[in-house]
């Protein structure tokens, strides 16, 4: 039996510690992991918990991230609670197995501490790895700070392991900006945290020796499409109601409210930026300042990246004319993911919207308040004009001649 930890009501934790504490509290059965910057401390912290008797599950230190997710898949199919953590290149190495985990409907939780993808090599935070996973069939939650990273882990386990869902879930946080930045985190005591997620309920478990099951079959053209359609359907229709219910229950328990789409100053906004991760807090600060100056600008933070919150965004963007999609990943030959998704979300609405794309912060480059003031000014001009007054895509905060397209 694992020993419990007495936590203060507010602990000073960075995002990595917040995630590892949540992993300890839900009493995972198997963690198979491989360390990589900047998520390494999650794995180290977990090892430390194990070494001191706070964890009684198995901790398998594998030889690669591909091995980590492979071990997680085997363990999850065997029938128990499973989680791991990774970043960047490690995430990229895992990609093959991410699709296998979701296709086999295994409720693994993966903490992704976002980091750029090489080349050139970079250890700092951007959302390239998050974007790489976006078609992998996982649920993707996005944390903006260590508190979110802590709380969203509980939500992720609860939703993923629900027998109606049975889909793996990622909890994203920004490399270094969240993962290595210590902040006050409101804690939940061990028993309450565990009970929020509940006991793991096995389903189609290989270790039920009386009921042998075959996992990971081959399906060709006569069956493959139906299975993929089923998985897509479940992501599209079943996940959001469960997330909503989990957010409601979590608010009741802690007083902390999460929403699939987070809205700040959007009620009568003419222009909004849509962004993720730590940029949300910076954008909100600027929005608050601009609102105080009488400018109608708001911020939308994407809390759930997959499934894509189409309906929630349609609702949130009602009355908004200009939308700035802020993508922290190199689109490499097209618009950013958020731009494309948002454009697709609003294109069939009755209101005419002006959507523009800002690429920023690659490889950990800062997004400053000055940048955001400039973005908001441009968006307000778009709203005023009812059409783009800038190029559709601009790369901001990069040295050299201004770089923009279309």
């Amino acid at each position, binding site marked *: 039996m694992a020993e419990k930890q007495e936590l203060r009501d507010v602990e000073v934790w960075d995002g990595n510690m917040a995630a590892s504490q949540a992993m300890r509290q839900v009493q995972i059965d198997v963690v198979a992991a491989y360390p990589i910057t900047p998520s390494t401390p999650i794995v180290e912290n977990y090892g430390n918990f194990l070494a001191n008797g706070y964890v009684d599950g198995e901790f398998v230190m594998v030889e690669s991230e591909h091995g980590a997710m492979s071990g997680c898949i085997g363990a999850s199919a065997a029938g128990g609670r499973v989680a791991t953590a990774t970043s960047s290149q490690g995430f990229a190495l895992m990609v093959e197995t991410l699709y296998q985990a979701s*296709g*086999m*409907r*295994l409720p693994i939780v993966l903490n992704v501490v976002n980091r750029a993808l090489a080349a050139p090599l970079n250890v700092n935070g951007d959302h390239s790895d998050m974007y790489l996973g976006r078609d992998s069939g996982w649920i993707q939650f996005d944390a903006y700070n260590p508190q979110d990273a802590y709380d969203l882990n509980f939500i992720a386990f609860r939703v993923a392991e629900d027998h109606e869902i*049975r889909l793996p879930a990622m909890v994203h946080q920004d490399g270094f900006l969240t993962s290595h930045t210590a902040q006050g985190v409101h804690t939940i005591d061990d028993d309450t945290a565990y009970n929020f997620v509940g006991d793991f309920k096995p389903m*189609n478990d290989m270790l039920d*020796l*009386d*009921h*042998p*099951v*075959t*996992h990971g*079959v081959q*399906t060709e053209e*006569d*069956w493959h*499409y*139906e*299975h993929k*359609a*089923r*998985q897509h*359907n*479940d992501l599209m229709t079943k996940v959001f109601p469960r997330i909503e219910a989990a957010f409601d229950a979590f608010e009741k328990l802690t007083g902390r409210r999460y929403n699939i789409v987070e809205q700040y100053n959007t009620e009568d906004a003419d222009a909004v930026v849509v962004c993720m991760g730590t940029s949300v807090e910076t954008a909100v600060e600027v929005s608050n300042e601009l609102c105080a100056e009488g400018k109608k600008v708001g911020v939308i933070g994407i809390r759930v990246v997959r499934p894509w919150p189409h309906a929630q965004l349609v609702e949130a963007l009602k009355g908004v004319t200009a939308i700035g999609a802020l993508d922290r990943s190199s689109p490499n030959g097209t618009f950013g993911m958020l731009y494309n998704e948002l454009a697709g979300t609003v294109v069939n609405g009755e209101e005419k919207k002006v959507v523009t794309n800002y690429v920023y912060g690659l490889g950990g480059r800062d997004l400053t308040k000055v940048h955001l003031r400039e973005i908001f000014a441009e968006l307000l001009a778009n709203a005023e004009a009812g059409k783009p007054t800038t190029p559709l895509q601009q790369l901001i905060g990069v040295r050299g001649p201004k770089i923009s397209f279309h």
Partner: protein
Amino acid sequence: MENNGWNEFEIGAMLRSFDGAVSDVATTLQEDRPYSRSNSFTASVADWRIEKPVFNKDYCIDCQFCWIYCPDISIISRDKKMVGVDYDHCKGCAICVEVCPTNPKSLLMFAEQEDEDKVLAEWPTKEKKEK
């Protein structure tokens, strides 16, 4: 199994070996197992065969070479005795015939459409050893 629609099967493309519980499969013979429809035991590869092995129990010494070397679990042995060939699962590889040590052989290959009684009646007699 019929070709179900996308909403009509268990998630994760998972397959069950049996309907219900089997607590000791390693000592439960095939005829006593509650195979599920998704167990390949319920399927047939008989149409793979051009030739079929026919078993003549008159010459069989129950050595079980055919049983152990059959790749397709198609030699039916019960109580240490060779009982016959499972024609649903036999692919006609003829390993059983090759490894049969009796003279004449207790298993021989015949065209798929040959009548079993007829070939048994015309079974070859003991061959003289060459050399």
